[in-house]
């Protein structure tokens, strides 16, 4: 039998009972839809993290007081480092429109805790950070002025350091740790500070999202298996229902292989169809969630292709047993079947 006629016969058989075919494919549809939606959301989050790193600078280290060695609590203050800090003042764009509604704020005076500060610039907008904080709600002043006039503190809470390039980042990180250990007379176990690079922070976030994706992917995988079992069940019923038909086909000259191929094609068509619907549902769901929650989503072509072939594979694996059963029927018994 040609592949063309096999496909036609299979399509016809599935069309005979559209409700049954749809319900059988439902497991696959849900499984694939879930995978596509979650991968898209995961990808979107990941790309946002990457954008964060790019915007903040891969060369940036964050030194903050307190060490996670001391029982997880961040405590201890320390003296200012020997690092130089730029003496810039700036005001963020949104704050500027809130604080200075008409016109450019440059040159004007801003009072912070009744202390006058002269505005020398406006930061370009940055939007939300990975943790969800509004990065634009920010005013930058020289640290010495802030400490003397606004916070009245003598200690710094954190220091941001920019290495000369991505390559020197590790070196800088080690140097800073060594320097501070020397100054504070601490060892690795007794450090009262922590040095993190943006990359490390982003990696931690990515690792969390990866674990989530893996977990949810496992759940989706289970649902695909359940869907496959559903297909196997229905194909077994179908084979039994069509015992007479199989008998006639065998009597007029069908090989066992051709019968097997016919039923296998049916289950693959069913699962591939479910997979396609699932992909569409998954894309629609991720678009919907993206629009509602303002999350970024990125539909991955790889995920779509993999999901499609996976669903076809489910049809092949779970359709094999019923198809084999059909091919092994004895024509005489099959023709006599009530």
């Amino acid at each position, binding site marked *: 039998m040609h592949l063309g006629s096999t496909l036609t016969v299979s399509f016809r058989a599935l069309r005979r009972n559209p409700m049954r075919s749809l319900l059988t494919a439902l497991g696959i549809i849900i499984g694939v839809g879930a995978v596509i939606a979650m991968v898209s959301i995961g990808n979107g989050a990941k790309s946002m993290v990457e954008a964060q790193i790019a915007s903040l600078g891969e060369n940036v280290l964050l030194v903050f007081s307190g060490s996670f060695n001391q029982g997880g609590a961040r405590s201890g203050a320390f003296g200012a480092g020997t690092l130089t800090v730029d003496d810039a003042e700036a005001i963020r764009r949104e704050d500027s429109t809130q604080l200075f509604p008409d016109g450019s704020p440059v040159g004007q005076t801003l009072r912070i805790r009744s202390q006058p500060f002269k505005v020398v610039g406006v930061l370009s907008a940055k939007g939300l950070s990975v943790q969800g904080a509004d990065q634009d709600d920010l005013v930058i002043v020289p640290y010495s002025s802030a400490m003397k006039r606004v916070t009245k503190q003598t200690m710094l809470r954190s220091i941001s350091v920019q290495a000369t390039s991505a390559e020197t980042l590790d070196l800088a990180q080690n140097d800073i740790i060594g320097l501070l250990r020397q100054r504070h007379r601490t060892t690795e176990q007794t450090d009262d500070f922590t040095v993190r690079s943006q990359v490390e922070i982003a990696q931690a976030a990515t690792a969390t999202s990866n674990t989530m994706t893996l977990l949810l992917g496992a759940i989706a995988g289970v649902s695909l298996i359940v869907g496959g079992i559903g297909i196997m069940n229905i194909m077994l019923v179908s084979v039994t229902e069509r015992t007479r038909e199989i*008998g*006639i*086909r065998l009597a*007029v*000259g069908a*090989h066992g292989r051709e019968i097997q191929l016919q039923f296998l094609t049916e289950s693959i068509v069913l699962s591939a169809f479910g997979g396609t619907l699932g992909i569409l549902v998954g894309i629609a769901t991720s678009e919907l969630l993206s629009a509602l929650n303002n999350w970024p989503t990125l539909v991955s072509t790889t995920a779509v292709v993999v999901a499609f072939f996976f669903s076809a594979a489910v049809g092949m694996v779970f359709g094999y047993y019923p198809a084999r059963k059909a091919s092994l029927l004895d*024509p005489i018994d099959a023709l006599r079947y009530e």
Partner: protein
Amino acid sequence: MPPVVQLEDIHKIYDSGEVPVHAVRGVTLQLHRGEFMAVMGASGSGKSTLMNTLGCLDRPTRGRYLLDGVDVSGLDRNELADLRNAKLGFVFQGFNLLARTTARENVELPMLYGQRRHSSSQMHERAMRSLDIVGLSDRADHFPSQLSGGQQQRVAIARALVNEPQVLLADEPTGNLDSKTSVEVMGVFQKLNAQGITIVMVTHELDIARYCRRNLIMRDGRVVSDIPVPDRLVAEVEMTRLREAESAAKLTD
């Protein structure tokens, strides 16, 4: 000319249950081209088993079966399937048409399998020709549910003929039909036989057997009688007789 069917001391023993069943106990016979043979016998006589053997659906336990000169004992499952496809046509008591397929597509079914490959237009043409022979070309696109019993059986006959078989095997073909339709269908068989098609028919009705030319009677797995049919009936004649009887009945109402 060599016989189209040659059975030499055929035995069939079923060994699946507790007691082995010796269904066919040494049948030897020959069938020549153009013959029209009825196989009769009570249930358990072995006639169904003989038909299954003739139809290459079952292998004999002992003995030789030569179909069109080919010894079938050496063939595997797939080769037997190809042989059935090329040389045999089957007609069943229950018609066995595919339900949600048109008459023409039903007739095309044997052409989907076998060694010869046809294009879809070739299949269409051959199917229509077959339907024409049985007088149903105007109902080619009807579904079996839209056809009467007699018409369905005629579609089944067309299907059996489509690959131009050597032998047509019919298993109680009139069993599900009323007496008038039975005569109609026997008329189709007689017409085909007149054109040279070899037919073997299993039946338990003597009236139906009288439309054939040769009558084989089986009992307990053996052939007990193999004679030409005496007082052979001709379908057209019987049809006319029936129609006259019908109109006579109406007149006297």
